[in-house]
């Protein structure tokens, strides 16, 4: 128990440092503050234009699409805030930053991830929250306690699944010294698979994104359930249970891969 408290204290301290560091140049946030909302609001606008001109996309009208888009964006935002260091594993490996972390009497993965609390990432959450609330009202989302709890579980589970995927892909750098482009590819792919209905894609791809990579659990299957659609994946319990469970299992796997990769870490040359 004492140890947990110690970790929490350290996290708080790291977060405080990181926020102070990022607020040192507040104007520097301006371009992000303009770019991120532009990117996501226009993204949803594109969907509206397509649906307006054509028809619902495989049974998903604009309201449903916006709901899925917002739900996907929520866990994306949280990952960007809490797990952004995994995107930069390549740099940490190349610069030998794990030397420092390995010498300290604390879990290396914990230090690595909490070492940069990405305050700026909150900007990603702005369009996420706005779009989600807007769409939730459009589809008549029930804001009762039970549903909110389900929502929280789904978002946390979704965040864990994303974090695990980035951890594993980032850890490729322990072997190859390179993983940045793989990360970029994963980020782009995640957008198209968590913010757009999976049923757009062929069955084989849906199967891969469900059983091989549990991306469908992040937001698509939960959204289907929240919207009372006929679910494309039959499971005995609700997704509010499945998403966090899958998240935890995948996270444990990702942690194991990271640990395994760390053994291959050979510090940086001069």
């Amino acid at each position, binding site marked *: 128990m004492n140890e947990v408290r110690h970790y929490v204290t350290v996290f708080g301290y790291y977060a405080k440092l990181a926020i102070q560091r990022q607020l040192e140049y507040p104007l520097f946030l301006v371009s992000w503050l303009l770019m991120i909302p532009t990117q996501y609001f*226009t993204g949803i*606008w594109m969907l509206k*234009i397509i649906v307006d001109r*054509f*028809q619902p996309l495989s049974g998903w009208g604009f309201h449903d699409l916006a709901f899925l888009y917002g739900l996907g964006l929520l866990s994306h935002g949280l990952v960007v805030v809490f797990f952004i260091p995994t995107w930069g594993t390549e740099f940490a490996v190349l610069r030998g930053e794990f030397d420092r972390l390995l010498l300290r009497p604390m879990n290396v993965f914990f230090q690595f991830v909490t070492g940069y609390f990405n305050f700026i990432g909150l900007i990603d959450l702005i369009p996420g929250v706005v779009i989600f609330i807007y769409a939730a009202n459009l589809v008549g989302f029930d804001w009762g306690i039970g549903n909110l709890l389900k929502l929280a579980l789904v978002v946390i589970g979704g965040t864990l699944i994303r974090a695990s995927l980035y951890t594993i892909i980032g850890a490729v750098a322990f072997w190859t010294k*390179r993983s940045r482009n793989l990360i970029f590819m994963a980020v782009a*792919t995640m957008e198209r698979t968590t913010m757009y209905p999976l049923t757009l894609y062929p069955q084989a791809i849906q199967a891969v994104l469900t059983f091989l990579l549990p991306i469908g659990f992040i937001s698509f299957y939960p959204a289907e359930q929240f919207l009372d659609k006929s679910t494309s994946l039959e499971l005995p319990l609700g997704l509010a249970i499945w998403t966090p469970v899958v998240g935890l299992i995948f996270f444990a796997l990702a942690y194991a891969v990271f640990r395994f990769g760390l053994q291959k870490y050979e510090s940086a040359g001069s």
Partner: protein
Amino acid sequence: MRAYGYFIKMRVLTALAYRFEVWIGMVGDIIMLAASVYIWKAAYGNGVVGSGGFDVGLQNMITYTVISVLLASVFQTGVQNTIYTQVREGNIALDFMRPLPLLGIYLSDDIGSMVSALVNKAIPLIVAAVLLFGFPLPAGAGAFAGFLVSSLFSFVILWLMSAMVGMVAFWVAELGNLGMVKDAVVRVLSGSLVPLWFFPDAVQNVSEWLPFQYTYQTPIGIYIGVTTAGDAVRAICIQGIWVIILGLLLAWIWKHARSKVMVQGG
């Protein structure tokens, strides 16, 4: 001229040295391409759907998407980030000491990147697109020729805009990389994702007076034959006018930017 040739060559060689990176990037491009095509397939459904007076069929929209991704992978406008980073880190002072016009050097760099992108990215992308969605044929030989000319203008317009936004750094480096903001706007208003003819009329009317749609939509529209020969000539002329306007504007900004150089740190 030989000096610029050297810059181009060095850039090609550097890009080729990171082949693994390039391949990963290409797989990403193909995934995004496929994702967009599936959205169009769902939008069109099984039957033919009329779309705002335009008769653009699904096959044409798939071709549109393929060519758009292809152009995006070939058009290299690194100048934006180059100027931003060089100004921010103070290296711009050293760049100014080079015995060649700086913008010429940056342009050569980007042309070099484009040459390697043609080999490294465009060809594999075309192969992948043919295997997945069939050959993205142009509407005809004339359309293809028009497309090539128009694409050249498109690149110049994109490059001039990028250089201009990069130069904002001379005045306000502390605002961060505004190029990202410009890119986000261009992605939408250029019609690179969704052609502007599907947009609401009000947006279309405004867009005609902005340079953005002349970067992606114009050449691709000519390629798939939505733009008729007469309109194509007119569109290419408008592109030319934009090149002149943006070119003059850039020259003017550049003249003033040079006097704004501030070297940071010691």
